[in-house]
């Protein structure tokens, strides 16, 4: 009888455990081993100790990617969070058509980032993109803007990221807003508070813990994102939109992106690990900082 129970328990858990262990956990340990080797995907594996990490320290391309990632993630968050909070606050009040608008704003989250990046490429293409066609034909600009060129590529990539993110964060804020008791607003209204006062004195402070979590989520997600950039600009031009995880991808699978980089499994693993640590440090730093901010209230 007892054995039967054990077999049932672990038997039901087995498929989940096996898949997670083999395809989720094992690859991480695999990379932990290879980051100490010089391995190009063929030929010999040479143990080189911490050489990959000393190389990383002096790798200008990587630090450029780190800077770009911070600009990209920062830009995305600075635009997305306030916009989605404002939308959420507006929709939280009994507005006509709020359910329709909520569903509309959330729609981008169901569309593939790779597919929408192709569409953005067609729209923002500098040579004959739809946007430049409109701008030049209607004489809004004198000459076509090089949206995917060195000056504007980062902006275009951020616009794409914001497009995909607003609906998601709006919904998270809406869920958070529902936890604020309505009588707080009622008593403020009796005291003659204006909508702006209500927003700054009630909504924002009461949303504190939820806000902290949502921004934390936004930070990790935006630091990790590279799919849309890969399709839209391939990290270019001249590395202007190269982000950390895209650099990792290119080191492991250079053929598919058409980049001139050489496959470096060992070094790529080291970069992947360093990137995970950087993401962890930034997230942890934010967490400590925001906890202190929370104490004010």
């Amino acid at each position, binding site marked *: 009888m007892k054995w039967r129970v054990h077999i049932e328990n672990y038997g039901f858990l087995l498929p989940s455990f096996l*898949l997670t262990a083999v395809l989720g956990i094992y690859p991480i340990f695999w990379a932990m081993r290879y980051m100490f080797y010089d391995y190009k995907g063929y030929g010999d594996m040479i143990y080189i100790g911490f050489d990959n990490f000393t190389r990383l320290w002096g790798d200008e391309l990587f630090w450029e990617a780190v800077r770009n990632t911070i600009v990209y993630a920062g830009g995305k968050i600075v635009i997305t969070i306030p916009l989605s909070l404002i939308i959420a606050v507006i929709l939280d009040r009994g507005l006509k058509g709020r359910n329709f608008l909520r569903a509309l704003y959330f729609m981008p989250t169901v*569309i593939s980032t*790779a597919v929408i990046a192709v569409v953005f490429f067609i729209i923002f293409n500098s040579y004959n993109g739809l946007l430049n066609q409109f701008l030049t034909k209607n004489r809004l600009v004198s000459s076509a803007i090089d949206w995917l060129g060195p000056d504007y590529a980062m902006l275009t990539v951020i616009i794409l990221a914001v*497009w995909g993110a607003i609906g998601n964060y709006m919904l998270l804020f809406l869920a958070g807003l529902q936890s604020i008791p309505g009588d707080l607003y009622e008593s403020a209204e009796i005291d003659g508070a204006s909508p702006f006062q209500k927003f700054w004195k009630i909504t924002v402070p009461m949303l504190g813990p939820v806000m902290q*979590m949502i921004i934390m989520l936004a930070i990790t997600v935006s630091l990790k994102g590279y799919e849309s950039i890969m399709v839209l600009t391939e990290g270019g031009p001249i590395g202007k939109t190269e982000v950390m995880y895209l650099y*990792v991808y290119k080191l*492991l699978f250079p053929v598919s992106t058409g980049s001139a980089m050489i496959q470096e499994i060992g070094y790529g693993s080291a970069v992947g690990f360093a990137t995970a640590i950087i993401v962890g440090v930034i997230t942890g730093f934010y967490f400590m900082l925001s906890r202190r901010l929370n104490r004010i209230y």
Partner: protein
Amino acid sequence: MNGIGKWVSRVILWLFLLIIAFFTVFPVLMTILGSFKSNLELASGATIWPKEWHFSNYAEAWKQANFSTYTWNSLFVSVASTVGTLIVASMAGYVMDRRNFIGKRFFVVMQASTMFISIGAVVLRPQFELMVDLRLNQSLWGVVFILISAHATTFFILMGFFKAIPRDVDEAAMIDGCSFMGIYWRMILPLLKPGLGVTALFAFRTAWNEYILPLVFTMNTPKLQTLTVGLTNLRYGSGAAMQTHLMMAGACLSMLPILVVYFFANRSFMQVTAGSVKG
């Protein structure tokens, strides 16, 4: 506040909402309308509404540009991985919620860690080597298994739904002589339908939209490419003679199924996202 001030603030508010709505819909609308335009019109027309409706774009994409194969592959990967994810996650969730045994905590930590640790594309390399060893690299099953292995989110969402099913159900069935497996299959799964429905939508969306994984696995086997991979290849293969009309039609083929699902089930989609904040 006086009447005029209220009126002005209302106008500003609606203007803001409409601008965001326009920004949201614009790329999707341009894709749908663009998929009916000729390549020439797309390249230089500066039109919103197609001058002539070229329904042939779809026929061309479907037959010449292999989108029939891509669609079939996407459908196979999405359906197989959705079913697999639901079975694997619901089995684990069932014992985790109803039984007590050694290693429960370890299992939860393991699942949670897969959600938070990310070393990027590095993991694809050992995953690919494993699939070569298992001889699964010449089919899409490798992709399916890897997608199923990322079932931690589904598992945690389902755990919430399991808690809502009263334990009396299990006990009553057990007294009637139903086995553990029988209870899971005949009692629990039917009661879990709302949770399964919601998580199925999510698993399907994830698989349908997945890009990097099928890209890496089907780099040398065009026959196995999914819609996302096939479509982006058109963009990489672009040069002077970009086939924009085919890209638009292809993008539509990839977007529309999930948009149709979203149209009918947007409440369920939003329910899970909102639930992640409430905890």
